[in-house]
């Protein structure tokens, strides 16, 4: 299955994301990165 069209496209503003980290503290992506670049990686699970 081709997932390349799923999710934000190149040039789009990445959506606001607020998710709990490994310590259950909520992280706001754009606040946490400030004015820095970021890499966002999605996986189906931490381990297969």
């Amino acid at each position, binding site marked *: 299955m081709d*997932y*390349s069209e*799923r*999710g*934000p*496209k*190149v*040039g*789009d*503003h*990445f959506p606001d994301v607020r998710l709990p980290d490994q310590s259950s503290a909520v992280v706001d992506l*754009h606040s946490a*990165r400030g*004015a*820095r*670049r*970021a*890499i*966002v*990686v*999605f*996986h*189906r699970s*931490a*381990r*297969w």
Partner: protein
Amino acid sequence: MTFVLDATGRVERKIVEANYRVRQGGRLLFEQLTGGQPASTQEVSEARGRQVHVAVRAWFDSPTYFAYQRLGLHVELTIDPGWHVYGPTTPSGYQALEIAVTSDPAGARIDAFPWPEPAAFRVEGLDEDFHVYEGSLQLVIPVELIIARGSGDARLDVVVRSQACSATECLPPSSIRATLALPEAPAL
């Protein structure tokens, strides 16, 4: 799926893996996307091998692996002064530089990677155009470890095949093997 965001939060690059189970190792991802290397405090093991006029040092960018992870294999070739090896494309009859990786348990697979630009080289009296590497050569090779979870520690053989030549002499093609031990990362 991986998104690279610029400083304003816009998507600068989007990467979709062909195999959804494959995950890029953190250091390789960082290097490929930023061109730099993150600071490391992790100990990694390395292996060395040598043939006449060519030496090889190899190491992974992680001390462990987990199933379906893609790690960066660093391969450093050191070629004696006055000698060269042929680049990845070379005229028929000469041994191009080749790198192969096998593993036990089986499942290591090399992904495409950029070779450094070889230097043009001409031999007086021959019509062929050669492209060669001299001195030191650094490669970072993405290696997918398509190995089932729970398989245990892996042994990886890195085989570098090349042909060392000088301006007046060519040795027969030879292979250098470097064997790396890569423990499986503990389950979460």
